[in-house]
């Protein structure tokens, strides 16, 4: 492939990066005052925030990885009916609004919460046993809940890449479990562990809603950006934050580039789960996996069912209450539902189509372009959503285009953060399209376009549908861009939750949150049924 053609295959990726990230971020950087920037670099308060944010992210990462390791091993090694559904369901915490998990934590871990009440009765004390709510540890715990599934997905790929024959050989020759672990597992898993660590670290570093909801006096850089947003200093803080997260992303990219190897064309051999039950360590692993599911799902389930229990209403009754409520500029609940669904359809289509173009062009090009595109798509994952929303507001809302108030701006914002994830899902599936198919098509004189439409797309269709549905549920549950870009004429379900809160209808607000969560879970389960593909994030 000549240089020009090679460059042309970069176009979809460059188009995505420029439209969705570079232009908005340039508008943020354009607002930065040099004096402010120097001021915050020397500010001891900012140093304190950075230190706290760093420690919190480090702890979140270490704990999330530790808990994810056995889970990843379980999913990589054993097969059973409903495995894909379980994997997708585990991702629920990653997609539900932060508020849902925070409420679950308060109900469970509050000083008068379910766990403390149980422990107090058990230990015969009136004092709460666990006092972590409203502290840095509550933020760490919430992050662990969010990111264990993400880390497990990445590590699962690592475990899948290990050849069982190699493990058996190491066991025979070394005679020690510890040596086997060091010789085989540690070597094979190291790149995945670093990748998972860096991603979880970056996500923990840039979240703001969790510290706001359960952090108490503990605060982070992102909260400071939120607190000063729309003031000139906010752009300087955002730039500092952006520089740090970009540095982390660069480490991810460099590391990926060093240790990159394409995913295997086939699926790794898995053992039936019945084998697990034949030994005590296996039963222990199964109990552990079940405990992790309880740990992950209970903070989501409780806020989902609580509104119905507390209000003593049936879901139908709550739904009727929502229908009777007038939300916006004459907007009924049905109007908001239709608008949300319509935006979600557009966002899913845009992000899936864009992802197909990015993956296809990189695969056509192969070699360096394929590798570079693959690793560079990790870059946007670590950009703060509120900074990006602010940049989009400045650039496309009121800057080069006047899109504020239009659904297009909301769709642009959501597509920016969903496309990198959709690309990961599609890329994994595309990599499994057998080379023989491609070579056979080429030998018969098929054009690149013919090969795309007749061979590649039909083969990756399940992954396309899964990515479409994942994008759909992400769009439905998006709070950041929805809140930034909604008006009374344009409203999505998460914004309707805000309206209900503002008008003091808390039980309806919680019921609507639970409805959104239910839709997200249902769509994910549907995705798992339609796709035979494992989820990939790195």
């Amino acid at each position: 492939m000549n240089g020009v053609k090679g460059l042309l295959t970069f176009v979809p990726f460059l188009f995505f990066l420029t439209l969705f990230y570079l232009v908005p971020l340039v508008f943020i950087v354009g607002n930065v005052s040099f004096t402010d920037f120097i001021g915050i670099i020397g500010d001891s308060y900012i140093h304190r925030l950075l230190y706290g944010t760093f420690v919190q992210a480090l702890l979140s990462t270490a704990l999330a990885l530790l808990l994810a390791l056995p889970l990843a091993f379980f999913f990589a090694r054993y097969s059973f009916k409903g495995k894909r559904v379980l994997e997708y369901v585990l991702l629920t915490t990653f997609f539900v609004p932060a508020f849902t998990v925070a409420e679950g934590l308060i109900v469970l871990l509050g000083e008068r919460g379910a766990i403390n009440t149980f422990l107090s009765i058990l230990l015969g004390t009136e004092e709460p046993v666990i006092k972590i709510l409203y502290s840095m540890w509550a933020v760490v715990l919430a992050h662990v809940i969010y990111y264990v599934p993400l880390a497990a997905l990445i590590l699962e790929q690592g475990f899948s890449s290990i050849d069982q024959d190699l493990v058996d050989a190491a066991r025979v020759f070394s005679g020690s479990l510890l040596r086997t672990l060091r010789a085989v597992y540690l070597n094979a898993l190291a790149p995945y562990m670093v990748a998972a660590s860096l991603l979880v670290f970056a996500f923990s570093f840039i979240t703001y809603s969790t510290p706001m909801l359960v952090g108490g006096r503990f605060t982070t850089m992102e909260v400071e950006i939120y607190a000063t947003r729309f003031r000139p200093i906010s752009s300087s803080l955002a730039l500092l934050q952006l520089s740090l997260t970009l540095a982390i992303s660069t480490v991810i990219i460099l590391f990926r580039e060093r240790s990159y190897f394409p995913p295997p064309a086939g699926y790794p051999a898995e053992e039936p789960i019945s084998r697990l039950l034949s030994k005590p360590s296996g039963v222990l692993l199964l109990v552990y996996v079940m405990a992790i599911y309880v740990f992950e799902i209970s903070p989501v389930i409780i806020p989902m069912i609580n509104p119905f229990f507390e209000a003593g209403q049936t879901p139908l009754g709550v739904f009727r209450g929502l229908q009777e409520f007038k939300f916006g500029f004459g907007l009924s609940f049905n109007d908001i539902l239709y608008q949300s669904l319509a935006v979600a359809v557009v966002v899913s289509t845009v992000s899936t189509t864009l992802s197909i173009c990015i993956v296809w062009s990189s695969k056509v090009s192969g070699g360096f372009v394929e590798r570079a595109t693959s690793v560079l798509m990790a870059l946007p994952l670590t950009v703060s959503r509120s900074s990006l929303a602010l940049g989009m507001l400045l650039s496309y809302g009121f800057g080069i285009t006047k899109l504020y108030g239009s659904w297009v701006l909301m769709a642009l914002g959501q597509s920016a953060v969903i496309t990198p994830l959709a690309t990961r899902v599609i890329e994994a599936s595309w990599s499994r399209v057998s080379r023989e198919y491609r070579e056979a098509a080429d030998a018969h004189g098929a054009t690149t376009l013919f090969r795309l439409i007749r061979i590649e797309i039909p083969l990756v269709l399940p992954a396309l549908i899964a990515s479409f549905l994942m994008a759909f549920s992400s769009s439905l549950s998006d709070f950041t861009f929805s809140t930034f870009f909604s008006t009374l004429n344009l409203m999505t379900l998460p914004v309707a939750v805000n309206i209900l809160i503002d008008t003091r209808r808390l039980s309806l607000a919680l019921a609507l949150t639970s409805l959104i969560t239910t839709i997200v879970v249902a769509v994910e389960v549907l995705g798992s049924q339609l796709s035979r593909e494992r989820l990939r994030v790195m």
Partner: protein
Amino acid sequence: MRIGWKTLAVIAVMAVAVVTSTLYLLLSQPRLEDTLIIYGPRGISGLATALVNGFKSRYPDVNVTFISYGMGSIEIANKLIAEKGSPVADVIIGLPEFYAKVVVDAGALEPYKPQNLSLIPEEEIWDPTGTVLPMDKGYVIITYNETIISRLSLPPPERLDDLLRPEYKDLVFYQDPTSSGTGLSFLVWVLSVKGVDEGFDFLKRLEQNIKVHPSGWTTSIIALKSGEVAIGSMFNTDVGYEETPNLTSKAVEGFVYREGIALVRNAKHPEIAKKFIEFVLSTEAQNLVAPEGYMYPVNPKASVEFFSYAPVPSNRITFNRELAGSVEQWLDRWRREIKTG
């Protein structure tokens, strides 16, 4: 080149979904440039919706929308100032009394005296320049969970200084003023009464009793419901709220949070903006204030029956105007010295 029926079916379904969605969104959205744009904080969106709907029924041919960008009252006011060269908004609502001077001094607003201003009593008009007109008001008071206070045999709090009682340790809350209007009102209340430096000293001492600074109203309610906190600042209309059982108040003193409405200088639709301001002061619109939120109307003819249950504080503290213009410095200081100090 033949395309399989499965692929065709998927493409057809997706195409229909996308075309339908796009058409629906295109047809259901009025063009913003033909629209009267009202800025205001996110927390006022319930009332704003009702006012816009009411105005639309009076002027059915006018497109009106309310925009908050998800911002609080200070941020939306700052956005208005930032846009003063080429304003997007025609009217701003929910502008707090304690930040009005900054916006007026920045030259972002146009003085306007509506014909029906006589409907509003003199004592409700708080902007000496007459640029920002009163729109509604609310009372931030000290509330407590009667069940918890009785169970612990504690005296109920009545005044700000009561909150410092050592026996209230870990029971008190007030909202984070950087994210909550109620929290900001509490901060302004303390500073209005005690002055800036002494006020911050008071807040530092108060931290010993503070359990949490909830990020907003919802998190306050959840903390109250779960029994995590028992004493704290809320609007008087939150007392008796069905979802916070036994939340009550002695209502001995409270802070009067007042907010206004103003015409934006160089607004694109000044005439219809003036009509909107007149409408908001009218009895018809003021009747919407109480049912649609937690604030009281400023037009005495409007009904407040909706809040008959809510205790109005006997000693009502208003904003100390000598402090005007420093809210952002207070918020910075609060984050640095109180929250993380």
